[in-house]
């Protein structure tokens, strides 16, 4: 692909997470041509970064990689990663997207994924793919099962020593790479732009991110992942194996002080899952979940919750009011106990925040689909056409239209692909 080029296809899928991949596969399997654009360096979205997934405790990589690989090798799917969607217009049965290819400073056609650049790079930076708990290099392949296996250089950290350029066997490193624009013309579009989490700094009552040993749920995913930063669960401040771990639910959802009155839908289940995995990794540790309501509503979820209770995980009903630093790296959690004890403080070695879920992308200024008050993309027939947006021919799937777990996202992705297929056919194409 080159500057100014125009690519045509039947369907454009915006976002290569699990919903986007599923939509793309369901379209491509019907012989429609599909282009996926992804803002990240790899497809796979949030799911490829997880450890195991509820309620089956399947390893997340094992479920995500087949879909990533099928999409990447599908004859009807073309994937562009590290792209920004600049403009999306729809008009009379066609959509037109203007997309910027961001520079990797590595020629994607030349890179063979040998990682020699990464090994030779002298600059260590915190690895965002490992929750910042360990280091990676300024030029690197983002993670072991990333697709594509193309290195990218982080210009903020690079000191231009030239080692990577010298060692690259194919001459792929290009410090002068520039961003360029290209155009995609399609009949229909599926927006599967996913979610992000509120930041740990957002809530002063919970320490604004300054209390050591308070981590986010996504960081805990990495600590629990089989190929995680420490290969075991340690608390970050001093490397101690925690004996007491607490999960604080609704730390950014159902919370008007954070501007997020809605329920983030899947936090109860991942907290229970992480608690279960922790009790396997640290059999002697005490594990507690502070919650308002346990929302285990999906197929097999309630049984999963009851199993966790039977395993001895402590469920404490109450909204945590304050989180503070305590002695020796522990964390003090203050809450109102409902057994009549009143306001109580418990110390834990490690605290995990189940942060709120926000849309990862806003169409504002890019595309004229409407968003709702919650800033997620609005659906115009939420009951009988949950994937229809305010623009004809533009559909939505997964967490882009509100928090959704993986099972519901995959189901909705299939539904969006069905509506998009029928839209293509109705245009006589």
């Amino acid at each position, binding site marked *: 692909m080159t500057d100014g080029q125009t690519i045509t296809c039947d369907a454009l899928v915006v976002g290569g997470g699990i919903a986007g991949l599923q939509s793309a596969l369901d379209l491509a399997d019907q012989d429609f041509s599909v282009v996926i654009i992804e803002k990240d360096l790899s497809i796979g979205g949030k799911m490829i970064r997880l450890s195991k997934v509820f309620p089956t405790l399947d390893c997340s*990589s094992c479920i995500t990689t087949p879909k990533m*690989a*099928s999409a990447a090798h599908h004859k009807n799917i073309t994937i562009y990663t590290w792209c920004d969607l600049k403009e999306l217009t729809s008009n009379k049965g066609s959509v037109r997207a203007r997309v910027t290819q961001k520079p990797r400073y590595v020629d994607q056609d030349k890179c063979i994924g040998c990682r020699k650049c990464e090994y030779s790079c002298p600059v260590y930076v915190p690895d965002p793919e490992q929750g910042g708990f360990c280091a990676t290099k300024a030029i690197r392949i983002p993670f*072991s*099962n990333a697709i594509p296996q193309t290195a990218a250089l982080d210009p903020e950290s690079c000191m231009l020593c030239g080692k990577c350029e010298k060692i690259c066997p194919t001459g792929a490193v290009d410090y002068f790479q520039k961003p360029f624009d290209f155009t995609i013309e399609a009949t229909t579009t599926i927006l599967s732009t996913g979610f992000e989490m509120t930041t740990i700094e957002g809530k002063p009552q919970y320490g604004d991110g300054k209390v050591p040993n308070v981590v986010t749920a996504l960081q805990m995913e990495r600590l629990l992942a089989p190929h995680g930063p420490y290969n075991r669960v340690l608390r970050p401040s001093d490397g101690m194996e925690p004996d007491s771990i607490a999960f604080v639910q609704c730390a950014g959802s*159902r919370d008007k002080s954070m501007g997020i009155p809605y*329920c983030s839908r899947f936090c109860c289940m991942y907290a229970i899952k992480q608690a279960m995995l922790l009790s396997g990794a640290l059999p002697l540790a005490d594990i507690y979940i502070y919650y308002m309501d346990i929302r285990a509503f999906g197929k097999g979820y309630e049984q999963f919750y009851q199993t966790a209770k039977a395993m001895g995980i402590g469920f404490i009903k109450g909204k945590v009011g304050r989180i503070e630093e305590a002695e020796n790296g522990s964390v003090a959690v203050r809450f109102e106990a409902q057994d009549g004890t009143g306001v109580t403080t418990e110390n834990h070695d490690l605290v995990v925040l189940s942060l709120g879920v926000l849309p990862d992308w806003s169409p504002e200024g890019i595309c004229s689909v409407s968003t709702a008050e919650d800033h997620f993309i609005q659906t115009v027939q939420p009951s009988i056409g949950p994937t229809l947006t305010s623009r004809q021919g533009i559909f939505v799937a997964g967490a882009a239209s509100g928090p959704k777990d993986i099972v519901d996202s995959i189901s909705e992705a*299939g539904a969006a692909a069905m509506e998009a297929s029928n839209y293509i*056919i109705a245009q006589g194409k």
Partner: protein
Amino acid sequence: MTDPKKMKKNKEKSEKIGVYICYCGGNISDHVDVEKVREAAEKFPGVAVARTNSFMCSDPGQELIIEDLKNGVVDRVVVASCAPSLHENTFRSAITRAGANPYIYDHANIREQVSWVLHGDKATYKAEKLVAAATGKAGLLEPLDPIRVNARKHATVIGGGIAGLKAARVLADRGLEVVLIEKTPFLGGNAAGLDTVAPLGEQCSALIAELAKGVLEHTAITVLTRSEVVGFNGYVGNYNLQVKTTLSSSSAFDKAAGHVVPFEGDNADTPTEQNVKTGAVVLATGFRSYQPKTGEYGFDDHREVLTLPEFIKQLSEVNCSGDILELNGRKIRAMAVIHCVGSRQIPGIHEEDENGYLNEYCSRTCCSSILHAANTVKEQFPKTNIYDLYRDIRTYGRGQEELYDRAARNRVVFLRFEAGNSPTVSANDDGSDYALKVTIEDGLTFSEEIEVPVDLVVLATGMEAGDVSDLVSMMKLPVGTDKFLQEVHPKLAPVEMSVSGIFLAGTAQAPMNISEACNGAAAAAVKTASLLSKGYLELDPYVAAVDQDLCRGTGACVDACLADGALEMIDAETENGTEKKARVVPALCLGCGACVAVCPTGAIDLKGWSLKQYEAMVDMIVADELIDI
């Protein structure tokens, strides 16, 4: 026992087997010494290379296999990783991309069968044995071609509720012929009994009418109401359904529910049976509402105790003014709603049904539904007091938390109970004219015991799996422990069933609300469209094959065959004149091997799972001297 010499001659054993062993992050390597397995595998007969990777299914992992095949290093592939149900297709497609036949590959499951159940030396030992067996078989694998069969561009949807209507419409729009089979005389299913629906308060009748209009007006959709499937045979792409249409019996269906779409089609006046030839089946058979046991929260004992569907129906018919709700001429000054009736039952706490069964699942929709009903009452009749007795409020979806918030602002009083300490409903004996009293230890006020006199109790009854036992036995469908129909895998194949070409839509699978049922239905439809839109499909070639030279026409195989019509006797012209010979119909063959076991002359074998391949696997498992342990 088969005389190996008489078997169709296998090619020589491959000497270029590649073994690819996966760490699976740590899922395997935490318990299996993967490098030790690799070292052992290198020494197995015929193995050219043995390699490992942290995720063999990832692109770099697959690339190892592709490179070796392309470079001629290997010509047979063994992958040792998770269950083949997860990744068989991934590796087959990698092998195809390398330009090789996808069936030259065998799989050793060293995760589910090894690392998840064994630890330490035992795990490594078993992993070595399974890899050894797979290499033994792989040496004898031959390229096979998938069986290509024509697929009818025709789908059948069973069930005319929300999910069935949605599925039928989108399938027809996709260009397939569709038959919609509904056993009642009307369309709309369970939703037809609803008034307005949570969370947005849309009129359910309008939603059903819109879906039904799209179905009834579509020329590619044939609607058969008052109809049931009574016979089923064939195979994916070519199923035959026997459909019986009967006269309606007006008493059998509760038309008074109101908002149904009566079907005015050309259903025959006399019972008829017809054969529907179809390519795939979408099961949208729905749910049934939990019916409380007599005495459960006073149900049946007190006429003032209603289920949620009963209450919704009565509320929709209310025609009173004033600020207190009146039902059947009775003022409802105070009412209690109780959550999780017939859902979230826990062994040892809740009473099992007559079959020893509990509904352990959450019914997902009742919290929003009851809060929506409570808001409807409070906003019209603010002086009717409502007490909401719950375990957890599960208003998870978009717009649902607002219902909870609104209920609190509408001054619905929330009281919380634990599963093991359910509230009780009894006749009121405090001398006042309230009919009932509800007693609860309220977890929100330090387990204080609270007694509430009320005029009405509404039980938020959950969903149960619909009775589809006839379809289950006819189509051999898997059913989960929750009695709902069971998908293959909640994420990898969420609407697929283990019977190829049969898909799940809506609440036949699990409790869902209307929006989720529509998504499930459209997802089932897209899989159906992918399967049928090409007009043909390819089936795995693991089927029986008859060696016509060896067949003596005894017919033993036909008697043993488990699939109707997969084996048949034909008159074959041979040098001895006309002789009876067995013939396999590949599309119908299950590949079970029952015929192989009974053939007196060893004339039948399974492609890809031959007796000789089994023998080679066993040889490798018992060949201890080959394995350095």
